[in-house]
Each structure stands twice: as structure tokens, then as C-alpha cells.
């Protein structure tokens, strides 16, 4: 029995998060990250991060360079590096922390990594097709090309020769090609022209409307906060703020301290 099946059969139960201080919300969390600790070799990078994301919301995960945002996302996606030594991650009643990366992906999680990770040697189209091999499958090729016509034009080109921005589109397209419940975006706007950023922002709203839950890491914090419902701020591997996005926008002191804006 795989983890997923075991969970569905009710063998595993969600932990009771109420005893955790940071969990102010009462609504049931869709994605729960609870006390995650992770290391790169000897260096202790994620130092007990906990937060909840509710179904259908957009959460902005913010912090300075090196705060551990990427590491947190990678820990959630079960990449194996950083190595998670402690903690639990639950996605819609499934214990992600017991799964391997591909099982987590099949459970409905998708990470768009910060360096895009377009696969060399594969064309644009093959890069997308690759996402449609393992179930569950999401958007069709046509629908994706409709959203990103540029990719359609370049479908036979090798993915890695795309321009930086085109690569970013491809990375997002790859996520949409899968049927996802939670989308983890690591700096999706980086290197994109402002018009495209607008475009993607609109796409994210569309995605949200379809009920997909999103965690977004972005250096352009203001932009991310305007989009997001809630925000979590990390500093040196610890959660220093967990609350509504508006609160951050309003609280200048907070922004100055942890985001320097």
C-alpha cells in the first residue's frame, strides 16, 4: 500500500494542531506545515517552521535573501535536500512528510522551482508532456498554449534555449499541466517583463478561482502581498510573522524590520 492509499483508508490521522501557538486560525488547514526542521549537511537552515494554508487561498511566503524560503518550499515538496529531520507536513489529510517527492507530486502538490529547472535536451513540448505522464493530469496542451502563446510558437525549440522569461512561463505551464491542489511558486516573477508579470498575476487569480491553493515566494513583496490573502514572514529559518497580507502592508515597522521595505 502506498502512503496515499494508507491515508485514504484512514490509517493515518491528522495531528491536532491546536496545541501549537502559531495556529490561531480555527478553519481547518488544507496544507499544514508543522515544526519542520531541515539541514543542508551540517548547516541548520529551516529551524522549526510551522504555518497553515487554507483551501483556495494564496499565501505569500516572504523574507530576505537566505532567509530559508526556498528551503522551506523544497522541504514541503520532499526534494530530499535540505534534509528534513523533524516535523510534519499534511496536505488534505495526506501525510506528505512520509512521502517521496514523486508521491507528494501525485498527491497534488507542485513546486515551480526558483531556477526553473527546464530539462535540457527536451523540447518545450516534451517538457510539458513530461508533466503529463504521471497521474493526475491537468490542463491540456492546447489550453496551455492558449495562455502562453509564446510557448506554442516555440514548441519544437529546446527548452533551455528559451529566453529567461519564456523559461519561467514554461515552468509555470508545466505545473498547470498537472492536476494540482497546491501550487508552490518560488519567485515566479523573476526575470519577467512587467506585462508578463501582470499576465501571470491574472493567471494566478484564475487558478485561485478554480480552487487551487497557492504559496508564493516573491522578492517583489508588495506585489505579492497585494495578491495574497495571507502572509508568512521568515527570518533565518524561523517564522516571525503569520497573519493577513493586509496587516503586513499596513505595518510599516514589520516590513522595515524583516523585509527592509
Amino acid at each position: 500500500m502506498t502512503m496515499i492509499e494508507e491515508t485514504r483508508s484512514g490509517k493515518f490521522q491528522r495531528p491536532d494542531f491546536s496545541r501549537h501557538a502559531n495556529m490561531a486560525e480555527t478553519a481547518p488547514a488544507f496544507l499544514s506545515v508543522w515544526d519542520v526542521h531541515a539541514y543542508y549537511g551540517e548547516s541548520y537552515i529551516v529551524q522549526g517552521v510551522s504555518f497553515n494554508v487554507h483551501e483556495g487561498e494564496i499565501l505569500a511566503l516572504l523574507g530576505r535573501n537566505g532567509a530559508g524560503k526556498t528551503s522551506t518550499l523544497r522541504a514541503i515538496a520532499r526534494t530530499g535536500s535540505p534534509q528534513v529531520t523533524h516535523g510534519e507536513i499534511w496536505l488534505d489529510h495526506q501525510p506528505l512528510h512520509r512521502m517521496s517527492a514523486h508521491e507528494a507530486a501525485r498527491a497534488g502538490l507542485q513546486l515551480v522551482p526558483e531556477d526553473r529547472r527546464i530539462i535540457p535536451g527536451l523540447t518545450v513540448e516534451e517538457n510539458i508532456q513530461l508533466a503529463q505522464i504521471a497521474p493526475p493530469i491537468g490542463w491540456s496542451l492546447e489550453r496551455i498554449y492558449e495562455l502562453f502563446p509564446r510557448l506554442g510558437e516555440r514548441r519544437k525549440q529546446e527548452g533551455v534555449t528559451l529566453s529567461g522569461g519564456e523559461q519561467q512561463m514554461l515552468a509555470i505551464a508545466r505545473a498547470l499541466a498537472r492536476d494540482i491542489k497546491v501550487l508552490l511558486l518560488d519567485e515566479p516573477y523573476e526575470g519577467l517583463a512587467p506585462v508578463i508579470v501582470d499576465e501571470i498575476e491574472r493567471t494566478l487569480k484564475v487558478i485561485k478561482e478554480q480552487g487551487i491553493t497557492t504559496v508564493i515566494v516573491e522578492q517583489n513583496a508588495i506585489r505579492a502581498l497585494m495578491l495574497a490573502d495571507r502572509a508568512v514572514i521568515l527570518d533565518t529559518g524561523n517564522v516571525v510573522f503569520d497573519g493577513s497580507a493586509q496587516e503586513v502592508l499596513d505595518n510599516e515597522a514589520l516590513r522595515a524590520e524583516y523585509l527592509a521595505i
Partner: protein
Amino acid sequence: MGILEVKNVSKSFGGLKALRDVNLSVAEHSVHAIIGPNGAGKSTLLNVLVGKLVPDTGSVMFDGQSLLGRKPYEINQMGISRVFQTPEIFGDLTVIENVMIPCFAKRDGVFRMHAFETVENEAEIVAQAEAALADVGMLERRDMHAAALSRGDKRRLELAMCLVQEPRLLLLDEPTAGMARADTNRTIELLRQIHAKRDITMVIIEHDMHVVFSLAQRITVLAQGAPLVEDTPENIKGHPKVREAYLGEAA
């Protein structure tokens, strides 16, 4: 006559015309920004400048000398350094060593057989490298493995590697992408200072308009491989075509 003169440069990849008849003149000691939609050919143009790509037609002159047909290291030795869009650093080396290599390149040229000296004893080089790291705020990471840096830090390291060469022409391909806002501002400040202090010309590609408008003296907008307009930042901001094709609501 600018220090950098690009004339009628075209470059195709198979059927795709990435650059069509690009003309560009960069005035000496100016900061010149190139902006434009994704895939417009900005990075391709830089690749032509540093010798990574050979254009199909056209000429590229730097300070009166043609750059075409020269090897990347020769172009660098002429005083042109580049920051790449995805950071290119020496991952296996420490941060300080990363910066020392360009120092040596600057001092010794393309090749010098100094097999019997000791790196640590090169006080002048070490000092230069440390100063450059201090400039970008990375001195405390001096002995870290470069591969273990976070992405923003890699960017800064690469910037330090270019700055330490005191180039005459600095090519920056999205130098602040992925940097936290505070650091972006610091980088803008740093670039501004360097520009003021030294006789340096900069060509900068950025999608972050805050950076572009704070630094650039002239802006060229590239679209579909050809220059759309070239003008001062104020005029570009208000240019309707640019707003539509590129800036969107941001400006």
C-alpha cells in the same frame, strides 16, 4: 561616437530571427539600459558583445576596435565584463577565491605561468578581492563554498567578480533579479557610486523598472529582435507603444 557601437547586427537561430539589424550606440561613461519583452533578444545581444555568439551580419566596435572574431577572454581583457542572467560562478571554490581569479586575470592577462608563487602571499590581490566583497556586502561569507550561497548572494558574488576587474564597460544582465528589495536598493547605490567614481560605462538589462529608472541615462527598448525606440528615461516612461508592449500598468 560612443564607446560601444553596434551596427546592423543580425542573428538567427534556425528560422528564428533573434536580432534584426540592431543598431546601438552607447556613449562613454554613461549608463545605458536595454529593456524589452521576454525573448526580445536582449541577452542574445549581450552574447554577441562578449563573443559567445557570432552575429550573422553587422559589426561591433568597442573603443574603435572590432570585437568580432575575438575570443571571450580577449574581449574581457579589452575591458568588458559581464554579469550573466543565471549566475555563473565557480561553485567549487570559496567566495574569496571566486573574486581572486578575475583579479589575477586583470593583473596577469590571459595566461601567466605562476606555478611557484603562493596565492595567500599575493597581498595586493587578496586586498582587492576583499574590498570588492565588502562593496557588495559579502565579506562575512568570504570562506564559504560558493555553491552553497543562496541565489541572491550568488548574484552579488558575480557582481563583485566583475567589479573587481574595474572594467571600462560593464554588461549587466538582470543584476538584481531575485534580490530582496533592500539589497536591490543597495546594489543600485553601489552601481551609482562606482559609476560616479570610475571611468566606467554600463549596459544594463533589467525588468525591474525601479532599477532602470534610477540608474539609466538612456534606454533602448528592444522588441522582437529590433530596437523599438531609444530615448531618455522620462520619455520612455510616457511612450505609448512601450507602455503597451512592455511596461503594462507597472510604470
